[in-house]
């Protein structure tokens, strides 16, 4: 299927150096943000091409969570796949996948069917929903020759058998990755990768905490783009970027404005367009907590001592992450109220991807809890290729005004 539809019109637009030094040495924060914007918007994967030029392999990881530490320890570049964004026209994927499905699944398949995923040797799809799961099943026909794996992420977080099962799952993944250009698995290398990822998560936590405490310091889009680089760059480079950004932000003056503090719930998998993220703050919202790119906040630091594979599995299972792709019966309402209080926020913005069933079903439980406490909220749906936001702008402005002038 993929061979027949090979795209001959793919012209790489942005070139990145093999050392990625343009990221760690960007002359200013603004220059780094612009570079991140260019990389994120480029469907020809400039950072992946740079990585694979010297014969190394990259693995495409569908959201929301994959054990990227493990891939890193095997000498692979784990790359977060977030669909085709605004730049991809869906021509073939609709027919293969179906019509009533989220944009990210269609555009990811479209990338595959048009040979835009050629730089990748392997793909991992976690079982976060039925679409992600099924997408893995049709990928081998779309990308012949590539390795694909459906990772069953457990949903029983109380069984004594869950961690051993997840360790076994990871071993299945290891055996596939070893055949897809990965170096043989070595526990000491995984322990080192865990330590590196611990540092990356700690820096991202500092960044999001800075946004929470002083939301005028950086915009939501800036925070998002800096984090998004984390799934596109070698993690060592991203860590340097984050450390440098921290220093730059400390020196940057805050630009407070008359805005309401909100938390952003729903976009944990498919990502809103950058225009839509911009719009949220343009109309007067400070997004002080969000569900974007949860991959980098999944758990607290992992103990690098002991069996690292077991520690990695335990961290996933024991995580307190409460989002739509983890079974958390009877705690949904409490969870949203806790988050509003912790932010603290004046309201909740639900921004759910069209056709994203896990998010859509959670919204009802969240809304019930917010109604009981009279906490205002607004629910908007989005798609990757949304272009006109006039109606969303109007709804957002009304929401902001209703809180500002209450």
């Amino acid at each position, binding site marked *: 299927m993929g061979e027949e539809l090979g795209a001959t019109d793919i012209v790489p637009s942005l070139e990145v150096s093999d050392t990625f030094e343009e990221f760690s040495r960007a002359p200013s924060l603004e220059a780094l943000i612009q570079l991140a914007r260019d990389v994120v918007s480029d469907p020809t994967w400039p950072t992946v091409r740079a990585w694979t030029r010297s014969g190394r392999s990259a693995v495409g990881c569908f959201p929301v969570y994959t054990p990227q530490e493990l891939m890193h320890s095997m000498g692979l570049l784990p790359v977060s796949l977030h669909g085709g964004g605004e730049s991809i026209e869906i021509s073939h994927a609709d027919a293969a996948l179906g019509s009533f499905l989220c944009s990210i699944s269609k555009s990811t398949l479209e990338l595959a069917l048009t040979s835009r995923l050629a730089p990748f040797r392997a793909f991992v799809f976690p079982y976060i929903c039925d679409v992600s799961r099924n997408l893995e099943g049709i990928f081998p026909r779309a990308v012949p020759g590539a390795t694909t794996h459906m990772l069953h992420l457990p949903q029983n977080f109380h069984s004594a058998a869950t961690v051993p099962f997840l360790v076994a799952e990871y071993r299945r993944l290891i055996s596939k990755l070893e055949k897809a250009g990965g170096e043989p698995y070595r526990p000491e290398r995984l322990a080192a990768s865990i330590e590196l990822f611990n540092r990356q998560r700690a820096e991202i936590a500092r960044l999001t905490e800075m946004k929470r405490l002083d939301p005028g310091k950086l915009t939501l889009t800036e925070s998002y783009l800096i984090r998004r680089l984390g799934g596109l760059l070698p993690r060592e480079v991203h860590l340097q970027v984050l450390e440098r950004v921290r220093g730059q932000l400390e020196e940057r003056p805050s630009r407070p404005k008359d805005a309401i503090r909100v938390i952003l719930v729903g976009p944990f998998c498919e990502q809103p367009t950058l225009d839509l993220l911009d719009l949220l703050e343009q109309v007067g919202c400070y997004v002080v907590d969000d569900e974007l790119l949860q991959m980098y906040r999944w758990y607290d630091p992992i103990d690098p001592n002991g069996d690292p594979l077991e520690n990695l599995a335990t961290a996933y299972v024991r995580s307190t992450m409460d989002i739509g792709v983890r079974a958390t019966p009877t705690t949904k309402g409490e969870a949203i109220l806790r988050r509003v209080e912790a932010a603290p926020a004046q309201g909740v913005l639900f921004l759910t991807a069209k056709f994203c069933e896990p998010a859509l079903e959670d919204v*009802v439980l969240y809304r019930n809890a917010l109604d009981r406490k009279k906490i205002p909220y607004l629910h908007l749906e989005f798609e990757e290729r949304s272009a006109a936001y006039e109606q969303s702008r109007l709804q957002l402005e009304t929401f902001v005004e209703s809180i500002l002038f209450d």
Partner: protein
Amino acid sequence: MVDATAEPQFLTTARDRQRAMVEEYYAGLADAGGPKKPVAYMLVGGNLTELVRSFGYEVVFPEIVALNCAIKHVSLPNILHAESQGYGLDVCGYVKNDLGLQELGGQTPFGRIPPPDLLVCSFSGCYVYVKWWEALAEKYGCPLFMLDVPYMRDDPPLPEDVQYIVAQLNEFIALLEKTTGRTFDLAELKRMLAHSRKAEEGWVNYLASGRRRPSPIEAYFEAVFYMFPINVLRGTPAAAEFYATVNSEVDERVRTGTFPVPEEKFRLVVEGVPPYPSYRTFWDFFRKWGAVSVAATYPKVGGLFDRGFLHDPARPLESIAEYSLGAYVNQSWPLRRKLIEEYVRDFGADAVLIHGIKSCRSFTAGQGDLRDRLIHDLGIPTLYIESDHEDPRYFAPAQIKNRMDAFFESLDRRRGSTPLPLVTT
């Protein structure tokens, strides 16, 4: 063309018995609930009927309640009520029917559905199960057991997957002992599994008769009526007896030459959940062309018994674990494709019809790729149409009929005027 206005011919005694069993089941539910006869809610895929029943629970399957509502044309009010509660247009129709019905008090034309005392989420093949049961847990506050069933990517399944489920089943048994105050009775479970196995053997024999030419069974539309015991009443002697009746009548059909489609013209494999609100209309679109489904995937949602698996009383928990893994929608797409291709070959089908469900991603996402594989790689004529299993607003009869007519016309032309050989196997 065949006169599709005539009523479809069912197996007489079996159909009457099936109706009576459904009525008895729902009548029994009306008195259930509370400590005397506690109620467990369960999902069809990978269900733990025998184990839960061995502890004295009555079992409710909200998916089956939902399809019964749809086929009786009462699903829309429930769906609209759920939408008024905030459940969006794109949420699964089964979920909306159930949650709407729960909010409206649980009354249906076939009886009152009691609230749950226990929620058993057999997470086998459908992620929406998790979200649905979270909503029920939030509403009722009763205990919820999550049976995490790994997605089936290997056939046979890997030992670690089976061991994981068995370990969870042991934990579930401890919970059942705590909630009921009863001690686990292994002998009782084995007895139930023996009844299940007998029913499964009967069901398999029924499904296998679709290989005959002409087919004495309608393996999609008619088979759906005979699924109830294999999904809901497994573990009881009544289910096993039911399939003995069914098969005796199928034998009679063969002897007398009375077939569900009098002049079998096209033999189809059907993939996908039926459009229950327009069930009869959809069936008539097949019947008028002399098209009979000889094999179908949907009747296997409760278990792929026809591919060799049967519950084994000698290995009770392992066998329940293997059953949970093997539910049709818990199978990876490569396994699903293989199964459908084998059905086409083994049942001598002329074509495949795929019915996609707007609000069911588990079944539907990827069916377009299946169509592509069947048509372009294997040369099997295949039609894909789309509506919904619960929501009547998504069934466009004129459009669907036009597409099906065009498909059968092209099959007819492709075949020319040569009639299919009639071979009785």
